[in-house]
Each structure stands twice: as C-alpha cells, then as structure tokens.
C-alpha cells in the first residue's frame, strides 16, 4: 500500500510492502522502528540518527517529533483516489471545532470568504472569557456550520476551510 504523508509543510510518499518493509520516496532508507506505546509512541533510528515520535492526538492529528510539534496526516492511495481532487495535496481541508462547550457570540466570516492564517472566524464565550476561534491556515471558507447565538458542545463543527493558494 502506498501512503501520502504530510509532515508539517512537507509531503512524503511511503510504500509499505507486504513483507513489512517501508520505502520512502521509492528508496530503502536504513531505519529501525520500535513501538514504545502501541500506535502512539515510537523510537525511530534513521541512518543512526535517533528520533522519538509521539502521536499526540487532535484533528488534524498532531505529532511530536523530538522537540517539535507538527501536524501529520497519512492517507493511503485508495482513500486519496476516492476523495478525488478535493483533498489532494494543496487542497487540504481544515475543520474548526469548538474546543469546549460555550456560547457562540459571533461569526465573523461568510462561506466563500478567503481568510488568512490566524484570522478570527468566530467568538466563543466559555469559561467566562471570550475566545477567538482562528483560522488554522490560509484558506477559503467552504462551510459555516453554526450560527451566532447558538450554544455549542465541545467538538462541535463551526467552520470548514479548504486551502487556497496565496
């Protein structure tokens, strides 16, 4: 199975052969992987260089690579094909969800708007503070999923962005 893996801003192609070997960008890379916590925490030695990788969680999933946190997604080619162009490289989608229960005081954007990274999308009042929900990346607002004045649960979808070339 081939995977397209996005590690922060980079994209890497990994092929897992049935015998368990992994090819990275088509070549054999000397590596040694051990699982510390099943499917969450690994020790990976690449050409003698020792790295500790932890899958922290979140959506999209965050990984800790040594001392750096990055967003990492791995999608197999079948899923990629099924998605079509929409979610191919360069068209990634970003969901903005309520991180905690609260009152959605205001929505500052409309569907179709193109917003910059960190632009305020909506204001959520929670824990007696007003919190701005911000754009995780530059993108076009594909969908607004909640209206101002609504009480929202933790994890409720507020908006969906798709990458928009600058």
């Amino acid at each position, binding site marked *: 199975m081939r995977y397209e893996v996005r*590690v922060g801003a980079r994209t890497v192609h990994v092929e897992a052969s049935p015998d368990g070997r992994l090819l990275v960008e088509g070549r054999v890379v000397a590596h040694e992987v051990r699982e510390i916590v099943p499917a969450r925490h690994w020790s990976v030695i690449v050409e003698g260089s020792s790295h500790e990788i932890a899958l922290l969680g979140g959506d999209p999933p965050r990984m800790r690579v040594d001392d750096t*946190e990055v967003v990492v997604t791995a999608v197999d080619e079948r899923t990629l094909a099924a998605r079509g162009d929409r979610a191919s490289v360069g068209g990634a989608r970003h969901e903005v969800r309520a991180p905690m229960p609260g009152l959605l005081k205001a929505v500052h954007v409309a569907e179709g708007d193109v917003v910059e990274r960190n632009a305020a999308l909506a204001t959520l009042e929670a824990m007696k503070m007003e919190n701005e*929900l911000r754009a995780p990346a530059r993108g076009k607002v594909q969908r607004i999923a909640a209206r101002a004045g609504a009480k929202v649960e933790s994890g409720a979808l507020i908006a969906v962005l798709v990458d928009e070339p600058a």
Partner: protein
Amino acid sequence: MLHKVLVANRGEIAVRVIRACREMGIRTVAVYSDVDRTAMHVRMADEAFLIGTAAPSASYLRIERLVETAKRTGCEAVHPGYGFLSENADFAQAVADTGLVFVGPPASVQRSLGSKTEARRIAASVGVPVAQGTMDPVTDVAAAREVCDRVGYPILLKPAGGGGGKGMRIVRAAEDLADAWRGATGEAQTAFGAPALLIERYIEHGRHVEMQILADEAGEVRWLGERDCSVQRRHQKLIEETPGPSVDDDLRARLADAALRIARAARYVNAGTCEFLVAPDGTFVFLEVNTRLQVEHPVTELATGLDLVALQLRVAAGERLPFAQDEVVRHGAAIECRVTAEDARAGFLPAGGRVDLLRLPSGPGIRVDSALELGTWVPDEYDPLIAKVVAHGRDRAEALARMRRALRETLVGGLPTSLPFHAHVLAEADFVAGRYDTGYVGEHWPPPEPELDDRQTIAAAIAAVLAARATHAHPAADPARSPWAAAARAEALE
C-alpha cells in the same frame, strides 16, 4: 503547630499544599467535586470529602460547605491555595468565625487590598507611585471619556471588582474607547458580577515585576525577591523568572522598599505579592497586591531554598518568621513555564480531555509541580493549568538550558497544550537575551511553522504510516484512543 488542615482547592496547588503538610506531619482533608473523584489531590490526602458538582459555584466556591467540612473533620485550619476562594474576604471571615485558622491574610486585609481603589490609596499614602487615572470605579462611558482625555492615551481599562487579567483592555486612541468599554464592562459583569471599571494610564513596553513578601502576626515583614512575569497573553502569565533580567540591585531595593511599605501600611500577614509595572526608564507604578500564594511561587523557592507553603502554615499557626532579612539569600536563577491545556497555535483555546501519553521531566535542576498522571481527566470547568515545569541554575543561562532540556523531555498526549509556545520562547533570541516586556507574546507568537530536518521527516512519516496501518488493522480497538480513527470518522461524515 497545626495538626490537621483542610485544603480548599484542587489540581496541582492542592497537591503542593498536601505535600508541605505531609512533610510537616500535618494531616490533610481534601475536598472534591464529582468530576475530581479520582484526582491526585484526593488520593494524596488523608481524608477526602465530596462537596458538590463540577461547576465551581456548586463545589469549590461553596463557603458554607467547606467551613462545615473543616469543622466536622476536626481541622484547625483551611488553606485556600490560589484562585477559587483564596482572595475572598467573606471566606476568610467565615473560616475565622468558625474558630478555624485561615492560611492567608485576615478578612480585613483581604477586603482593603482586594479593592483596587483602596489598595491604590494605601500605596499612595506611603509614597509608592501609582498609575495616573481614576481612584474610583467608573460606570459609564461618558465619564470614562472625560478621564481618558485628561490622563492621555494609551489607557488601560480594568474591572474594579476582580483580578487575574479578565476583562482588561488597552485603548490606544479615543475612537476605540467605546468598543473597548463595551467589551470590558461585559466581561467584568460576567466574571465578577460588577460592571464598573478602573481607568489607568497604560505604560508602553512595561515589564510586569512583582515582589514576594512574607509577614507574621507580630508585624515582621520580609521580602524574598522579585519575579518578572512579563511574558503574558491577555494578562495571563505564561513564564516567570527570577532574578528579573532587567532588575538591578537598585531597582530591586526600590521594589522591596515599596512592597514593605504597602505590607506594613495594610497590616499584612502571611504570604503575598506586590505587583508593579516597570517602565523602560526604571520608574515603576504599583498595580495590586495578590493576597495569597501565587502560581509562580516555586521560582522564589528554588532561588531562596525556602518552602513558602510551609512558612505560610507556620505563620498561620502563630509562629514568628524563623529568619531575619539578611538571612534570605538568593542563589542563581530560576524560571517557570506554566503548561496549560490550551492549544497554543489556536489562540490558546482551552481544551480539556484525557491525558493518554505522559512523560514529565526530572534530573538536575528540574522541579515539576503537577497533579497529572497517565489517564488523568482534565475537566473543562477549571483553570487549564496542568503542570508547572521549573528550572534552577547557577545563572540564567544554565536555568534556561535546563528548561529547554526539560521541555524536550516533556510529553503530553490526548489534549493540546501550551508546550509548543514554551519551547519556542525558550529558544527565541529576544527572550534568551532578556529583552522582553508585556508586549512580547503579541510580537513573537505565533511564529512561522517549525521545520523538521530530513531524517526527522522520514522518521515521522514512517511512524504515521504505522499508526495508519494499526488503525486499519484493529478497527475494533477503542476508537476514542486513536486520533487517526477520529479523523477518519470526521472524514466519513462529510
């Protein structure tokens, strides 16, 4: 000497107080809300009692229930920690009225220093400079405009009824006043039940420097050194250190003198902190007194070797301070990072959840105060602080190097944290050089996305593929434990 103390708090500060009590041979009674039944402070205490449901007003803020529990269990004293009822004069009074000892300044002191206007009056009366502005709370925007025009912009609006940074607004021009007033007064109403605001001249590029004091009932007061807490976001402290990088012996002496004057004038007892805003030219104004133990007290403990909680308990028991001012010696440098359950890259949005990966740092010069264990549930209802990582070194460079090393060792999975922020700042050139003020976070965060080298990228890609395959291979595994599965589900719903 006290024999039994009720700890009216939760989380890391309840654990901190219980640790001190245990070391001193004092028995402890913990209290908990229903969501905290398995919390560490409940397990570490000798006794534990349920006091209500998750909402603070239904548990940790229930004065009567707390006092009744303390009385019934035979406690002699109550330690409020920080937050919750720690600066509530009614609570201090209720504790005293029941014949118990409140570990902190008495209600009368809490009342006078808790009122910002009264605190400013006390400071001004002993010659400590205060910011230009109103001494009395303002309730309407027209009156506010008059004051602002007189004092001059930039100005700072802050709630008269409470602290902690909630509801504060900086206004740089007259045309922004109306909007800022509306926001601040609204938040003040929500947070403190009182819409009135104070107006102060705002000092640009100021540094938030505070002085730790400790006083006994006999009126003796000691100062234990300053902490620079300028690395703040929305007036919430994120990093604190001592000595302050910009504080020289002269400034330190002036801050200590100001703190001692205020403490004596207020007849202060127990531990407290005088907060100041220091301008680039070394002049300063008094901000407020925190009439309680502070989150960042470990920084001072590492530098002085003193145990502030133990000293609080001794002073509360009526003991005299066991050392003279010249016996307080500060060694090296100490720094604290407040690790919070907040998504640093998403505007520090708080987010509770279950900690499902955890490694806390240790080794030379590192102290961690936390109530975290693998599996700990971090509720949404309370302060998002989950761990304080504190580093001590012979000088600032060593303390910073140790902190960087410790942050690298720290691993928290299952919820977003402030760790990326702390890791970034500890390596950022201005911070490392000690060049920062209260505007620092706004200028330096968020930074560009971090970059990985080739081997790190390959290692991460390999792990990601293994995780994806594991999710695929074991669809029956608990999906709540796999973020990949969650992502896949969300995908499927579209």
